[in-house]
């Protein structure tokens, strides 16, 4: 990897080594369930990044759906006593 890549505006950061990148990519790899479940160590960095982006997008979508659902649910539980009961049960 050449040093012309877009990064490192920080003066303290030296050139990024391939090993460092591979290390970080493998770390990211462990977080993505799809890749983790495949148990393959030969996933390319490009694939990891692609799956990462997809995964984040999926998570965003899930949060959006949950937000809609929660807003609808909260609208239906109008009394404040319900909220208190919820919080209490959450904190046990």
């Amino acid at each position, binding site marked *: 990897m050449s040093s012309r*890549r*877009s*990064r*490192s*505006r*920080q003066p303290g*950061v030296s050139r*990024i080594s391939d090993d*460092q*990148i591979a*290390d*970080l*990519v*493998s*770390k*990211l790899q*462990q*977080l*993505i369930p799809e890749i983790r479940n495949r148990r393959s160590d030969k996933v390319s*960095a*490009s694939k990891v*990044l*692609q799956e*990462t*982006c997809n*995964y*984040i*997008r999926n*998570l*965003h979508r*899930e*949060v*959006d*759906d*949950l*937000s*809609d*659902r*929660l*807003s*609808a*649910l*909260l*609208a*239906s*539980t109008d009394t404040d006593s*319900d*909220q208190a*009961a*919820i*919080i209490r*049960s*959450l*904190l*046990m």
Partner: protein
Amino acid sequence: MFLCVETTRSYSMEKSYMVTDSEGGYRSMESNRRKRKKMESGSQKVKRGGRWRTEAEQQIYSAKLVEAITKVRRSSAPAAAVHRGRAVREAADRVLAAAGKGRTRWSRAIMTSRVGLRLRKRRKVTVTGNNRLRKPAVSKQEPPLKRRVRVLGRLVPGCRKLSFPNLLEEATDYIAALEMQVRAMTALAELLAGTGASSSNLQPPSC
């Protein structure tokens, strides 16, 4: 859900591994230990999924989330369901970012950008894409790897101009946080659906 019990158990079990790092909290060392076996065992200061996986963290987040959402419902009460949903989403993100305690770039970006942007779509951040200020050679010309890096930078808030290693670090933490957010909101939704009497039947189950 007996979340408290599990929390206590995991803490007492892992007493010998208890580490209070600079994050100010102790992670669930169980999951950390598992992760450590797979990943590099050297660095301890790196924020992996660890702190976002503790029950305590999720509980705290859930409680704050309920508070925030309740405020949303009470304050403006926009008529359209879309706006309500988005308001909830932004509240959830704000609380999530606050839980990050400002230690990550994405959390700081959320906290500084969300105030006053209530009804704007989140996509605004990603629409101002990388074509404007970046190098002229863009998209189809560059190798797919770089393109994917850019896409990733757009997806994680506030990380568009980040160096590659930092971006990966931020993404790692961001993903873990998002997972916790999903877990907490799902649990909350199920809880509400359970106590919401018959009105909850009107809502189609999100799948």
